[in-house]
């Protein structure tokens, strides 16, 4: 038997007695690694300071494309390879994700060493981006199958890891660069070589640990509830059919609008708090604010997704949009010209960002409720294009308005009420989109129900 067959889905079927609580650590190993992407900003200044042999330097815009390409590739690869993942199984997908993510760092290191930006685009952006997309969706359907009783908790745990990954990636990158620099070595190439190897090894822990449940497996003592919400289907919908349902596009809007609003704060968190509390918040304190938001973001992923198991997915998003719209509208009123309360500002911003994270973590379980577990990873992959769009739309709105105020020689702090009120309006639209989500019509259901979602994918 070849070593490659170890990656086959059939080889990753759990033996009787396998404890399902071994699966979340496998998923976390992948998400904690790929979450590093959100810490890429720590390399911006060191990359700006790099000189080529001819003295050439890169500008901020050119460096900014590295992250943009990676996130675009995340959405693209998740959408393209989701269907393949359902048949190939999570172990093979995680392995390829680990190879791409690790190799991406190594190629980028060669680019930094030889001062060739296209190599960094190719490495960290394209190859690493494919690793991001595959890694992001690879454990989702497996977790949902292992935790039919608590799908929100299970996927919340994994996607919380993506938020936590930035918290690891940021100090790891900074400390490694300081270490190599102190030794008189080229800091960025060696840091990326090291990170590529470390992340590959860490992700391999996930590859070796992940298991899919055996046919007919269910949690001990658990039976499917006889009466459940009409929004939780007991049928399955194929990914190609799912994208033809109106629910897919309502959910796409739900994710896109929730993410756009969150990015409105995250994008400008540091300058926003300094502008709204001029003279009270130093740059160091503003950096602390970004840290506080990261903690709320990560906690929100786990807490909101877990809560959704009890209150339902649709009501959870109703809270995000209703409460979010009110809080975004209220947020500028906490500034110096009104209530003048930094604590209130931080608290309100923290709650809104927890709902931003919660939106990411709750969507896989929402998809499972609507379309069944059969193709949930593939459908999730297609839906993640909403993230890519929001990643462009959010900063465009924020930076466009700020640029306009600066061009008109108006104080920047006067731009924030407009920005935040636009975000509040977007959340109202999201509320309506979520309200429109109804059970998927019978004509979209798969005619032949797979006896088990695990084997059905073969």
């Amino acid at each position, binding site marked *: 038997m070849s070593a490659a067959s170890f990656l086959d889905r059939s080889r990753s079927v759990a033996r009787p007695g396998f404890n399902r609580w071994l699966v979340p*650590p496998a998923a976390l*190993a992948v998400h904690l690694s790929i979450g590093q992407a959100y810490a890429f900003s720590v390399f911006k200044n060191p990359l700006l300071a790099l000189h080529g042999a001819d003295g050439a330097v890169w500008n901020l815009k050119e460096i900014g494309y590295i992250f943009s390409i990676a996130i675009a590739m995340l959405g693209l690869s998740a959408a393209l390879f989701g269907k393949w993942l359902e048949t190939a199984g999570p172990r093979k997908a995680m392995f390829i994700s680990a190879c791409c993510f690790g190799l991406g760092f190594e190629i980028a290191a060669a680019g930094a060493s030889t001062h060739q930006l296209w190599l960094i685009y190719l490495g960290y952006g394209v190859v690493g981006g494919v690793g991001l997309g595959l890694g992001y969706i690879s454990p989702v359907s497996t977790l949902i199958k292992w935790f039919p009783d608590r799908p929100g908790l299970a996927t919340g745990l994994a996607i919380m890891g993506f938020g936590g990954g930035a918290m690891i990636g940021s*100090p790891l990158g900074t400390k490694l660069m300081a270490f190599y620099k102190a030794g008189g070595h080229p800091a960025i190439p060696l840091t990326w070589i090291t990170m590529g190897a470390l992340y590959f090894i860490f992700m391999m822990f996930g590859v070796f640990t992940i298991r899919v449940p055996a046919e007919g497996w269910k949690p001990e003592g658990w039976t499917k509830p006889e009466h459940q919400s009409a929004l939780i289907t007991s049928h399955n919908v194929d990914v190609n059919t799912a994208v033809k349902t109106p629910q897919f596009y309502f959910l796409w809007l739900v994710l896109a609008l929730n993410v756009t609003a969150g990015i409105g704060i995250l994008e400008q968190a540091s300058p926003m708090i300094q502008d709204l509390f001029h003279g*009270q918040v130093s740059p160091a304190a503003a950096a*602390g*604010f970004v*840290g506080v938001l990261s903690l709320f973001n990560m906690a929100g992923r786990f807490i909101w997704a877990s809560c959704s198991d009890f209150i339902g997915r649709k009501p959870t998003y109703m809270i995000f949009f209703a409460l979010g719209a009110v809080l975004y509208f209220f947020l500028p009123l906490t500034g110096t010209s009104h209530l003048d309360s930094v604590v209130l500002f931080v608290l309100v911003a923290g709650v809104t960002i927890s709902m931003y994270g919660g939106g990411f973590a709750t969507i896989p379980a929402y998809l499972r409720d609507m379309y069944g577990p059969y193709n949930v990873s593939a459908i999730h992959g297609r839906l993640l294009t909403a993230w890519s769009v929001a990643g462009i739309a959010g900063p465009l709105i924020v930076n466009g308005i700020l640029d306009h105020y600066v061009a008109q020689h108006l104080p920047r702090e006067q731009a924030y009420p407009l920005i935040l009120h636009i975000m509040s309006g977007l959340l109202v639209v999201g509320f309506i989109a979520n309200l429109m989500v109804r059970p998927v019509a019978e004509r979209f259901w798969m005619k032949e129900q797979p006896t088990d979602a695990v084997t059905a994918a073969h």
Partner: protein
Amino acid sequence: MADPARTEKKSSIALIAVAWLVVSLPLAWGIYNTGLNAAKLFTHLHQPAPAATTPNH
């Protein structure tokens, strides 16, 4: 139907604990570092300059 050759063997609690430790330790390190950074929000805040007042005895 389950393969009869696949005998039931419960996963050990130690194995589960080790698996969780492997992912929890780096996450805890990341949260600790973020917490240190977040603390700056409260330690680097400047009090707003008090409004000029005339002594009022």
